[in-house]
């Protein structure tokens, strides 16, 4: 894989390019609206270039802004795996609807990652879904229903 340093520089570069693109796009805005994004986008892009230059030439490792020392791999899960779980969750929502997706995700996650028993996982998931229904009814909210839930609902009339 890539070195941490390479990824760090790439991140700065992407940020710089996005800011430059925003400054570029800002030129089309109306009288007052263009100055602010144009100016700061440009300054940001220049700053990103300076940082990349410094990282390349001086080769000083970036300093973390908070002292979180845990190495990501220690616990056996890589951050990518965690993001995959998130993707699963959000992927389930349009299929099952928000409440049901939460329940299924919770059971799966607790069984696979946390090593919980079936009973605990199911009670936990029921509580999670209860939270959604309770808050939803108090705030009169609707959420994405998902086509499976819609099918069940229409079957039930």
């Amino acid at each position: 894989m890539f070195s941490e340093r390479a990824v760090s520089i790439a991140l700065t570069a992407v940020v710089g390019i996005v800011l430059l693109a925003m400054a570029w796009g800002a030129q089309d805005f109306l009288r007052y609206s263009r100055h602010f994004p144009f100016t700061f986008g440009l300054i940001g892009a220049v700053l990103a270039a300076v940082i990349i230059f410094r990282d390349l030439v001086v080769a000083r490792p970036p300093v973390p802004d908070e002292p979180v020392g845990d190495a990501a791999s220690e616990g056996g899960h890589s951050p990518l795996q965690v993001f995959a779980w998130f993707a699963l969750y959000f992927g389930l929502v349009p299929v099952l609807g928000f409440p049901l997706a939460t329940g299924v995700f919770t059971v799966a996650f607790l069984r696979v990652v946390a090593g919980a028993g079936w009973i605990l996982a199911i009670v936990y998931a029921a509580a999670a879904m209860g939270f959604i229904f309770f808050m939803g009814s108090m705030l009169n909210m609707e959420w994405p229903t998902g086509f499976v839930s819609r099918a069940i609902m229409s079957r039930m009339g």
Partner: protein
Amino acid sequence: MRNFNSPMGALAGAAMVIAGLSVAAPVHAQDAPYYEGKTLNLLVPFGPGGGTDVWARYLAEYLPEAIEGSPTVLVENRPGGGSITGVNHFAMQVEPDGETVLITSGSSIQPYLLEDPAVRYDLADWRPVAANPVGAIFYVHPSTGIESADDLGSASEELYYGGISATGNDLVMLLIFDLLDMNVQSIMGYDGKGPIRVAYERGEVNTDYQVTPAYTTSVEPLVAADQAVPIFTFGIIDANGDVVADEAFPDLPTVKDVYISIHGEEPSGQAWEAYKTFLAAGFGVQKIMWVKNDTPEQAVAALEEAIRQIAEDPEAIERGVEVLGGYPLLYGEDAAAAARSIVNADPEAAAYAMSFLEELGLR
């Protein structure tokens, strides 16, 4: 169960939800009231706490009793996109069953008139069941030397006006400045009418308008302390679409009166049509409750009857002084007439407004 209206009621409601009990809808006989056992949703395209939300919540308080069949009434907030999100949602996702009605303010109408590409609704597809007009008063600081509408052209210092957004309600004010040949420097970008009034009080701007309720509580004390002089009202749109005197301020001239005294003739032409259209959108029917055209007649009749009851209920009127701004709640033909000037807006009037904004460099 009514709209949770006591702490205990809410707790009971919450308990029911927790326990998963739901009240089964009763089977309808043919002649049962349309809303019996149903839930009426008031869709508000703004977050909680704003003027439109408060207007909806005021109605939500009286509707359960006023509608035959006593439905549960809930307010559903769907903010976003400067209210366009919620209104689009109503247009595209809501069934015309009368169980969800839409509450709008001028913020939803102006983008429609100005053909904002994000707008996915056509007001002609809907009909108003309730509407609420509000008046507005233009006032200046005494330091401007302006004592009445006759002095508008001879201010003794530069005039500054503070606004929120040129495509919102401030468009009406900008059109007035144009109609009355007033030379005013407009500064847009303030957070709201409250902050603008504060800017007025500290001298950052020296002209301003406020709607009637805010004028009564916050500007009248300034008038009494010689810190403000009321000059004219925006006028009220009557059932024929004409601008007439504001009953709340019978002694003040309307924009129309001032126009006549300056130009020596009745106002006409595209500029005036644009003024009337946007006056209606922002003030004349500042708040509207809409249903879709193909909503069952039974439902519309039940809603209109309910609004009539609320509009005539002395207790509701008394409690609604702040919410309604001191103007009557319109229903039935009155509401339809009031909304007509925006639903049937002359496309040329809107086109004039757009080119007017373009000339100002605002489009």
